[in-house]
């Protein structure tokens, strides 16, 4: 079986035609992971018992002549900041090393209802804070196509697992580009849904006004199947909403795509520029019209983001106090003071980047700095959102590169946090504005209007069928 090119669609066909059983394929995936993941390090933990029981249930349903779901038996990887009941979930942090989830995240509940098979939990930057997966407390994930390079981050483990064929598809989370940037670095498809489109119940929170869960997959079609499965209003996440129904009037040949001048500047790698020019020509052949637009506040997005995100993260991370969730067993309650437990657990449990963001968050929220930083950033955030609102009066969709540079080497940026932050310059504005965006080969991102994932997915699918799949 060629696991590397296995998609949800052809897996389903093979399963229904009884070319293989779900259990056989699941076992093949675990064999491949055993052989290959030693050098890639995409997974933090495998959930073998769960996966095999899920696969056997699918085989039993098929044997009984039942009709099965498109996702039934499909082996998936899950970023380790999304809770699976009874499984360890660490967010790649020592502070949660012993934490076992007592419930399923809503997205996991939905995947289980669709009878998907969950292979394991993938590596990430600690608490999803990073752009290279080097910030994991446990291991460094390598880019499958060049082991000396980073897979991107923070969903680097999910992207690497899909790219190396060690999962058919995966879930990740995207706060400032954490699905799209690693998808791009590993050459797979990544979708960051509209803020509110997918429930975050059971996602370990980083920055609550920005976080979204979304799929990483080999094809746009697969990303769409996963998105359709996990989306929707959830009582348990008050920010979630029911997505609008599909815009049936949308046609790719009548589509106007905006090219923001601020994204095509001198810092953009020439190779990426050339690829994007090729993409534009290809889309023109499909009937898309292009129009230059301006998103004038783009240059302020990184500073705005690195104020709002740490402010929210420092607040969200206050709950890891060593009293709840998990504690290093060497810190005992007996003869301790409450404050000692807090300090010991947090000083030893959090890694460098997490500490940096907690302190940065405390700074921008402190009295005397609040107006100059946090409030200012919230105002700039509105200006960035209004840039997009204006642009969408003229165009249907916006096309940009995903990153200004190609995948960098492991170790290259880890000692320069500001350089690392700036590598997310093209993905961050989308989160600040709450919009959906699709990252796909070769290196482009389609940004849609709120809750109109269907439009960018439609363009993505047509592009893929016309160019990427035939290549």
């Amino acid at each position, binding site marked *: 079986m060629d696991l590397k090119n296995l998609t949800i669609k052809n897996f389903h066909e093979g399963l229904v035609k009884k070319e293989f059983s779900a259990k056989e394929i699941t076992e093949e995936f675990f064999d491949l992971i055993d052989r290959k993941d030693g050098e890639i390090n995409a997974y933090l933990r495998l959930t073998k018992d769960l996966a095999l029981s899920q696969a056997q249930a699918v085989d039993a349903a098929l044997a009984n002549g039942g009709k099965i779901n498109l996702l039934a038996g499909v082996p998936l990887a899950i970023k380790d900041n999304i809770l699976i009941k009874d499984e360890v979930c660490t967010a790649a942090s020592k502070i949660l090393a012993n934490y076992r989830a007592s419930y399923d995240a809503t997205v996991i509940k939905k995947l289980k209802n669709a009878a998907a098979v969950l292979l394991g939990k993938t590596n990430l930057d600690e608490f999803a804070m990073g752009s290279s997966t080097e910030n994991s407390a446990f291991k460094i994930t390598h880019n499958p196509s060049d082991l000396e390079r980073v897979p991107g981050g923070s969903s680097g483990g999910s992207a690497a697992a899909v790219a190396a064929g060690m999962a058919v598809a995966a879930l990740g989370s995207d706060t400032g580009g954490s699905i799209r940037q690693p998808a791009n670095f590993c050459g797979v498809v990544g979708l960051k849904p509209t803020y509110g489109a997918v429930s975050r119940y059971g996602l370990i929170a980083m920055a609550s006004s920005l976080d979204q869960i979304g799929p990483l997959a080999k094809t746009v079609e697969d990303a769409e199947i996963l998105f359709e499965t996990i989306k929707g209003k959830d009582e348990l996440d008050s920010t979630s909403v029911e997505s609008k129904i599909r815009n049936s009037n949308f046609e790719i040949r009548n589509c106007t795509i905006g090219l923001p001048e601020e994204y095509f500047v001198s810092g953009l790698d020439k190779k990426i520029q050339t690829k994007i020019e090729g993409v534009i020509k290809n889309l023109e052949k499909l009937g898309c019209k292009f129009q230059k637009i301006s998103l004038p506040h783009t240059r302020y997005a990184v500073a705005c983001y690195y104020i709002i995100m740490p402010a929210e993260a420092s607040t969200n991370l206050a709950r890891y106090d060593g009293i709840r969730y998990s504690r290093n067993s060497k810190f005992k309650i007996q003869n301790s003071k409450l404050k000692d437990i807090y300090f010991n657990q947090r000083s030893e449990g959090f890694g460098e980047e997490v500490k940096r963001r907690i*302190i940065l968050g405390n*700074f921008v929220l402190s009295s005397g700095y609040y107006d100059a930083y946090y409030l200012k950033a919230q105002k700039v955030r509105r200006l960035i959102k209004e840039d997009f609102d204006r642009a969408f009066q003229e165009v249907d969709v916006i096309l940009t590169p995903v990153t200004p540079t190609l995948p960098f080497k492991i170790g290259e940026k880890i000692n320069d946090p500001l350089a690392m932050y700036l590598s997310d310059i093209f993905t961050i504005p989308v989160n600040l504005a709450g919009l959906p965006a699709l990252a796909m080969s070769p290196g482009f991102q389609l940004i849609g209007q709120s809750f109109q994932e269907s439009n960018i997915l439609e363009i993505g699918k047509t592009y893929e069928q016309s160019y990427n799949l035939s290549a």
Partner: protein
Amino acid sequence: MTALIDKKILEYLADLGRIKLNENEEEKLLKDLQNILAYFQELQKLDTTKVEPLTGGTIEKNVFREDKIRKYENPQKLIESFPEKENNFLKIPPVFG
């Protein structure tokens, strides 16, 4: 321009976050934060006096739900996950003193 953050402020902020930094961490963080905060100065160039802050995700609307009791399906599971417990209670050190 004076430094936006010094050792004293850094220690205060770390203390607020219940984090104790060793000397190496302090030195590195101070340098990183000075760079990052200097970069933030870019925002001061923008006039935002007439702009309303955007305080959340995209839908700026309060969400209401019925105030009803929902039974958690397996409370024992939560109790089992306490790092330390006595009977069914979460064990914590004395809060005062």
